[in-house]
């Protein structure tokens, strides 16, 4: 019996599951046996399959995460945090004590206050206040927790994004997605555990370090997908290599690898064989997962998705398809919210591009019964200044002290508005949630004690939340 039997039998490679592989392939048993040995000897950090599903510290409420990273930093003052006082004091300088020691990226801290540009109204049974720019979200607010007391430490994009993604402003730490996969493993045998999309006007300021594995094993790194073309780099067979040729070649590669394995007896060869198997399966399963035409028209309409486009809406629908197929962590970077100027026009356009699909995710996951164990996180790296930027009274600078995010599903309390900023939306005055607290809470929902999900590196047990972070109980259902 050989590991390529299913090819001869014409079986869909996607149907080949892990158990089959282990049962049918002696090599798989070899590596499993090795894994046992390693565990017995206390090398729990190097199990045979670093992506095997793993038990968490406590029962997880969320089994997968969809992080909608609104990079560039959306204005909380235009979207969620309604500040009538800001309207009242429009055009006047901010109180001196408020801006003492305040540093801004572009403006003088004493720049005049700028009133909100849009109207707000209360929605749903929860009565959550949402701006007129988010009519779709307004319809699902009862499923969402709006967190108005967010605060962060950095006010430049790249460091702030890296802080949001990795818990540190220093580049090179593992990302939230990587930690999640490190802790939980993967439920998909033929798709990456951690998938990343970029849908905005540009890529995120922090670049690939936003989904890096840091010092964790590199299998936990986010894999960039594209919503059009080859979803994964080098997924398609190159010109001149048709399906049969690829199949025959892989069979030969694995046969020769097995011959060599019988001589040299290195379990790494068994792993290599498995990697080629999985690559082959991924070649079939990834395009299928990414094929929006397989979605019924009404679902596409719900998102506003149009097959063939590389839009945020399409990407959200793809994300749902990937989550359904066992992908643990999907992160969509939508970098287009940096409204130093042209605030009114651009934020309106951004909401038009994103609001419907964000709300559709909530609706769609809910109707599929997936919302209860899928955590959705929406937000940017910081907020925007209540003070104006630019002569046209139509822009805001970076503001780390207070901003808004929302969470839904995955054990999050539904229909709450949590925390509060002051009358100008400048400082958090109630239920402050620091990035570390957000991370602690997300890990808690995923079944982890954030102080115990650690990795030994450079002589120290590192964790996502470094030395701080409190689980925000008020956000947990």
């Amino acid at each position, binding site marked *: 019996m050989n590991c390529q039997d299913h090819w001869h039998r014409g079986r869909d490679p996607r149907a080949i599951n892990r158990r089959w592989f282990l049962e049918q392939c002696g090599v798989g048993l070899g590596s499993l046996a090795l894994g046992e*040995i*390693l565990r017995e*000897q*206390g090398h729990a950090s190097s199990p045979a399959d670093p992506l095997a599903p793993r038990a968490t510290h406590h029962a997880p409420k969320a089994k997968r995460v969809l992080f909608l990273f609104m990079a560039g930093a959306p204005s909380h003052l235009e979207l969620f945090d309604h500040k009538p006082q800001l309207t009242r004091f429009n055009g006047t300088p901010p109180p001196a004590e408020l801006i003492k020691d305040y*540093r*801004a*990226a*572009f*403006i003088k801290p004493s720049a005049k206050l700028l009133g909100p540009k849009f109207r707000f109204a209360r929605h749903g049974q929860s009565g959550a206040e949402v701006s007129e720019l988010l009519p779709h979200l307004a319809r699902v607010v009862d499923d969402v927790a709006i967190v108005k007391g967010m605060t962060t430490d950095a*006010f*430049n*994009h*790249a*460091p702030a994004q890296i802080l949001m993604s990795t818990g540190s402003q*220093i*580049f090179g730490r593992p990302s939230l997605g990587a930690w999640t996969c490190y802790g939980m493993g993967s439920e998909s045998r033929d798709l990456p555990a951690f998938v990343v999309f970029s*849908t*905005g006007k*540009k*890529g995120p*300021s*922090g*670049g*690939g*370090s936003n989904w890096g594995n840091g010092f964790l094993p*590199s*299998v936990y790194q986010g894999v960039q997908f594209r919503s059009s073309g080859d979803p994964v*780099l*080098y*997924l398609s067979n*190159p010109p*001149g*290599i*048709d399906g*049969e*040729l*690829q199949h*025959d*070649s892989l069979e*030969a*590669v694995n046969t*020769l*690898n097995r*011959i*060599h394995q019988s*001589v*040299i007896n290195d*379990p*790494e060869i068994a792993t290599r064989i498995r*990697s080629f198997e999985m*690559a*082959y399966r991924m070649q079939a399963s990834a395009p299928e997962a990414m094929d929006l035409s397989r979605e019924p028209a009404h679902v596409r309409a719900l998102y506003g998705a149009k097959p063939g486009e590389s839009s945020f809406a399409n990407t959200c629908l793809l994300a749902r398809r990937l989550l359904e197929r066992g992908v643990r962590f999907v992160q969509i970077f939508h*970098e287009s919210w940096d409204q*130093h100027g042209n605030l009114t026009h651009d934020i309106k356009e951004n909401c038009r591009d994103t609001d419907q699909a964000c709300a559709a995710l909530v609706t769609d996951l809910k109707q599929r019964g997936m919302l209860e164990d899928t955590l959705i996180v929406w937000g940017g790296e910081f907020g925007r200044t209540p003070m104006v930027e630019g*002569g046209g009274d139509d822009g805001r600078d970076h503001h780390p002290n207070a901003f808004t995010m929302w969470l839904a599903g995955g054990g999050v309390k539904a229909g709450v508005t949590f925390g509060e900023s002051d009358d100008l939306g400048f400082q958090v005055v109630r239920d402050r949630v620091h990035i570390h607290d957000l991370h602690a809470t997300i890990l808690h929902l995923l079944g982890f*004690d954030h102080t*115990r999900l650690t990795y030994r590196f*450079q*002589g*120290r047990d590192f964790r996502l939340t470094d030395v701080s972070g409190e689980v925000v109980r008020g956000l947990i259902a």
Partner: protein
Amino acid sequence: MAWLSLAAGAVAGDPGARVPERVTFNRDIRPILAGKCLKCHGPDARERKGRLRLDLAEFATAPAASGNRAVVPGRLAESELYERVTASDDADKMPPPKSGKSLTPGEIELLKAWVEQGASYEPHWSFAPPVRPRVPTVKDHAWPRNPIDAFILQRLEAEGIAPAPEADRATLIRRLSLDLVGLPPTIAQVDAFLADRRPDAYERLVESLLDSPRHGERWARPWLDAARYADSDGYEKDKQRQVSFYRDWVIRALNHDLPYDQFIIEQIAGDLLANPSQDQVVATGFLRNSMINEEGGADPEQFRMEAMFDRMDCVGKGVLGLTIQCAQCHDHKYDPIKQDDYYRMLACLNNSHEANIAVYTPEELRRRGEITSEIARIETELTHRSPDWAERMADWERRMKGETAEWTVIRPEYEEESAGGEKYHLMDDGSLLAGGYAPTKHTLVLRARTTLRSLAAIRLELLTDPDLPRGGPGRSIKGTGAVTELRVEAQPPDGRGQPIAMKFAGATADVNPPETPLDPIHDDRSHRKRVTGPVAMAIDGKDETAWGIDVGPGQRNQPRKAVFTLDKPLAWKGGALLTIHLVQNHGGWNSDDNQNLNLGRFRFSVTGQVGVVADPLPAPARSALATPRDRRTPAQARLLFSSFRTTVPEWRDANQRIEKLWHDYPEGTTQLVLAERERLRPTSVLSRGDFLKPTKPVERGVPDFLNPAPSGAMDRLGFARWLVDRRSPTTARSIVNRVWQGYFGTGIVSTSEDLGVQCEPPSHPELLDWLAVEFMDGGWSLKRLHRLITTSAVYRQSSHASDGLLERDPYNRLLARGARFRLDAELIRDVALAASGLLDDRLGGPSAYPAAPAFLFQPPTSYGPKVWNEATGRDRYRRALYTFRYRSVPYPALQAFDAPNGDFACVRRQRSNSPLQALVTLNEPIFLECAQALGERVIREGGSCDQDRLAFAFRVCLSRPPAAEEVRTIMELLNRETRRLSVSGHGPGPLADSPRTAAWIVVARVLLNLDEAITRE
């Protein structure tokens, strides 16, 4: 159980282990304390609980806050430590349950035995300088080839394991080639080695590989990882930088076997050596490999400090083998590095400019030398030709001295929002130094007050500065800048009244280049004809024209000045409030790239004198003129003469010849380096590492638990010498451990970035010390170390593993077999390139752009559009070491195989095994091109029958002939694909002209994808 002191220590993680007869602190106790206790009872005073410190005997045996002693040597019952670790009540139990840590029964037993045996402490092994240990005697005298083997064998004999037999010769030459030069051996090399029956054939092979220039390329890569080398800045903009001279320096240094101590000294402080060569200055690029954040609004000082922290981390991991960055925010929790120590070390490095200098290839250096000596020759000739030159020059000097106006420097404030995210720092001399983000178009608005009663002219000085590209005075990559327009408004000094736009009668400057179109990099895609030219262009009201200062590579990076005269002097009582609009619109379309043409450092002055013009003398010449003749340096004298000669009408020809020579001056390239500041920059301890929260100032110094500071100044050079002092306990151990790691996959200390208290204990502690001392005694020669390791018997073992051995020693820490591990990312590409014959073997030079998907470098994948001009010629097939490295968009084929992206120092790569790697070697274009070229090569060179061809292909890829079973598998594939591709309606497709060639390409692709092809074994 004889598993002692391997990996996690004697019993850590192994509850069932027995307690050894004699407990030793470093082996048995320290790992327990470090892992479970020291976080709260360690060196960090602020985190310390109960005033108890367990890492040092004097504190552990003293009464703690409770009044009890944690450790009373020999008296278990009186030792609070034992009571607490065995407490059943959660409130008393140590470690506290909520810490998430607990002791195993085995660990508790060890602690018990340790206290009973007298609780003796030892200093952490790596903090005492290595002493050459005695080479152990072993039973098997036949096996060891050098002392390394005795250390390994002693352990194996104790474990009752026999070493593996020597690998076969084909395996050995492939292993040696991959290890020493990073390329597989050619068939001819294999044949020659197989046929070489001389007793020292192996040693000769080692020598020839060590002599190969490829050796430097192979071993440069791990050092470049430690040096966090990348070709871009990182962060949001992630702009290109030019640092390949540094990479070439590393390659050359390794090829020349520059002693490691000197290798470090030059990288930390090469610029401070006496009469440093260009190479020695380039070496300081090591510390400059830090990331640079120039996103809009970023504070340059904040990110300079981030870079300083990164440099400390790099020096810690890369040179000292210690993780010191914990002490950035607080005393180190495990190692005795205090926060003060950290900032004292940082102070040694903190007195530098972030310089960016022009550097030249050897050919350019030669050309530059020719030009300067030719100019000197012509100038000397002029003096010979005109005997009265000295008097005429003295006349000229007198005249020039008289032609100076009284200028009053104004100290402006700038409107933050007008800077477009750029930051301007007001210097002591009233100039503004630009830093951070560099928008390609912005109009800076400055406000300044003058008390002059009459205002007749305004002077703009463009000043050089070591922190600017090529020294400035501008911020473009050439160090140039341009003034699109200068507008000035005046108001009465009380600020009342409408500002009046001032009219200029004219402008003069000390440089007025002819009208020149902008460089392509400054194209703003407006399709307008945009130019730089004489200073009049700064006041012509046109956005397309600007005053430029680019007069060619030899003379462009000099201070310049322009004087703008008012059409009629402004005469207000009490002076005026000036608003200056400095329009800088001559950058390109993309502010996320290196397209700015902004001013870098500049200063405004005003005068009431009427009729003044810009001083035609360059600033350095003016200062030479002010120096009394007998006190001028020869350089100053030459400088003055060079100005003088241009004023002599009959020397027109000579002047023109000299101008032409300047015109031919080589452009060179640039390199980020360090340059020492004149005035010492103060350093303070920063509260929690926050650059806005300095607490107390510190002097330059080093921690006292390491070797003492050398006498003399602790500047960067003193610090560098301290790092490589013979008495340094960790420096030599750290590098020999990493070289060992390169050969065996794992270091003797597996945590090669950290030899501190928390490190994994060494598998062979005495061998590590022996190697470290031997290395230093051998003149810190890396090649000698490579030779020593590769000629040992332990290195030459076969990597075949028996089931029993695999079970007993899965990580091969005992080294009873040869090491077998996947090649590093770059070598995987290099093997394919070499096997295919495509490899371009030019040594050094700028980074190359091999094939990559274009969308990676464009939004929304990349933050900004990035340059990736995919190479079509030889550059496409350069060794992967030379692949251009963007930090934010790592080259995918390398990233998949764990190449680090240079965000921080990396001294130990991961070695993953993933499906994405399979997709790369199967489907990535360059790998496919390699398969194609190899398939064609096999037909061309592999012989006349398929059996020969297959043997050829195997030997090219794997350095060995195929076994019968392998031949069968491949022949089956070859014939099947030939048949399939021959049937009508199918054809060979784009791979090749004929089905047979296509089928051979398929075979080549299979071979290049084998585990064995990407593994050294």
